[in-house]
């Protein structure tokens, strides 16, 4: 009985905390991939497909964009996943590592709210309003046309890629401090869960994590409404778009290069599309 509980507990632990995909082959080299939870579905599905015709063993682990970049620099991973560019600070600090960026897809980030708020009328926000909420100047939904409810402001860990591109759009500063914050979350899944559980939350999520409990609001820019849809991303009008990147230290070689080429190739790009992102070849 005791052993049973522990086995079960172990499985849950693995699923919930690190969300890793471990695929084992008999022989061949080993490729470690670590980083962004946004890029993770692409990497793990591609890894599965890639290993059908290769003897390499690929391990994919979550952690966030910052972790991905740091792991590559520290030699703990062969490929880092990042849902943002390398920041100026990072490129200065890690100049010696000669980091190389390999874009594999396109994604967009939405400003999301709890479904209750969306249905109560908050369906579009300006960047100034979002900034006011995150700075703690706007504390009640009624100030932006919603119900009389306090706002649960959900932020992300500072190094996360989603936060970088979102804050870059809202404030023009990727590492903006946000004194209005009430909760800090990590992965996309965690933030999605916290916003869904609340009935008055605001947050930021990759398009793929939007569902009926977590709704994306339109962005108002100079009186023009920009819908949070793939349509407007394709047209180029949606402003919070980012590349999904693989990052290596120096030019990739051998199996690592083969894997990156696979993801950039037709089969990999089909997986990118199936994962809900836009392929890099025809954006």
């Amino acid at each position, binding site marked *: 009985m005791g052993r049973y509980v522990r086995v079960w507990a172990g499985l849950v632990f693995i699923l919930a905390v690190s969300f890793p995909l471990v695929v084992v082959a008999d022989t061949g080299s080993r490729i470690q991939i670590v980083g962004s939870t946004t890029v993770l579905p692409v990497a793990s599905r591609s890894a599965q497909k890639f290993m059908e015709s290769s003897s390499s063993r690929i391990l994919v682990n979550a952690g966030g964009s910052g972790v991905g970049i740091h792991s590559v620099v520290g030699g703990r991973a062969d490929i880092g996943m990042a849902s943002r560019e390398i920041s100026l600070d990072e490129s200065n600090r890690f100049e010696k590592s000669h980091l190389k960026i390999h874009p594999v897809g396109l994604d967009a980030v939405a400003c999301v709210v709890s479904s209750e708020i969306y249905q109560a009328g908050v369906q579009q926000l300006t960047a100034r309003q979002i900034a006011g909420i995150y700075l703690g100047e706007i504390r009640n939904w009624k100030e932006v046309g919603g119900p009389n409810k306090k706002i649960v402001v959900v932020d992300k*860990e500072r190094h996360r890629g989603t936060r970088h591109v979102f804050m870059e759009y809202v404030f023009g500063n990727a590492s903006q401090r946000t004194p209005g914050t009430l909760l800090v979350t990590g992965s996309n899944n965690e933030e999605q869960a916290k916003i869904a559980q609340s009935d008055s939350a605001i947050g930021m999520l990759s398009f793929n994590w939007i569902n009926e409990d977590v709704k994306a609001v339109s962005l108002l820019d100079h009186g023009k409404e920009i819908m949070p849809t793939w349509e407007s991303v394709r047209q180029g009008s949606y402003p919070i778009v980012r590349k999904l990147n693989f990052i290596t230290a120096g030019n990739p070689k051998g199996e690592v290069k083969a894997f990156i080429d696979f993801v950039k190739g037709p089969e990999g790009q089909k997986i990118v599309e199936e994962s809900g992102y836009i392929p890099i070849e025809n954006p």
Partner: protein
Amino acid sequence: MNAFFCVRKLEPVGWIFAAMNFVFLGCAMALGIFLVVESVPILRSEGLSFWLGENWWVGESFGALPMICGSLIVTGLAIFFVLPVALSGALFTSEYLPPSFRRKVKGVMELLAGVPGIIYGLLGVSFLTLGVKDALNLLDGNTFFTAGLLLAIMILPTVLTLSEDALHSVSYEFREAAESLGLTKLQTALRVVLPQSLPGIVGAVLLGIGRAMGETIAVMLVVGSLDRVPGFNLFVSGQTIPSKLGREAAEALGSGLHWNALMGLGLTLFLVVAIITFSGHLFIKRCNQ
């Protein structure tokens, strides 16, 4: 001199035991030294303001006060919730339950004590945060209070089963003597057995505090992870030392001062637990005198 004689007279097996003891001591010392060495840079650059500073901005300043306060609050809450339940439960199990039933209760408790924190964390995220939010009509359920409650549930089996061991190990002669003096069962339990087993119970509570202080993932999922110095309001989100480590360790690994700052947090936790354990033993000593 005496100790020296003991060592000299050891048989071969005794040497193995002694070696194992040094393995343990070595591990403890290595951990302490590692933490101190790794946190020297941050203590040198921040000084006392590492413990007194309120702002944790990577690259600018590292102030650990929000995390230290958070850890103390959450652990204090957990002990506050757990003490009455664990003590009453232990008394009842030890003094009133028939032996066969007692063994079953103990079995369940020991099983529960081994359940890893993530299980509690997931249950906390899925049920407890929502329950606390609805029951207390809060803005959000990720609070110190929730974390304290979750920790209390988590350490209850440990504290209960160890307190029960302490109570049960009180010699039967005491109980018989008390009975022959005409004390009722309740009087015996409260005035004879409980005082006799106090050192054991304090030990159980200390272990509980240790687990509560060090719990990472369960707290991280329900405490809100917001760095701010809490006021007297327990129903707001915050941060504890382990949850901060859990959030940032992977990112900071091998990246200079940020990593040293996290190790400094680890050292702080180590010291706090050491102080609490030391005071607990001092308390036991004074009780025995």
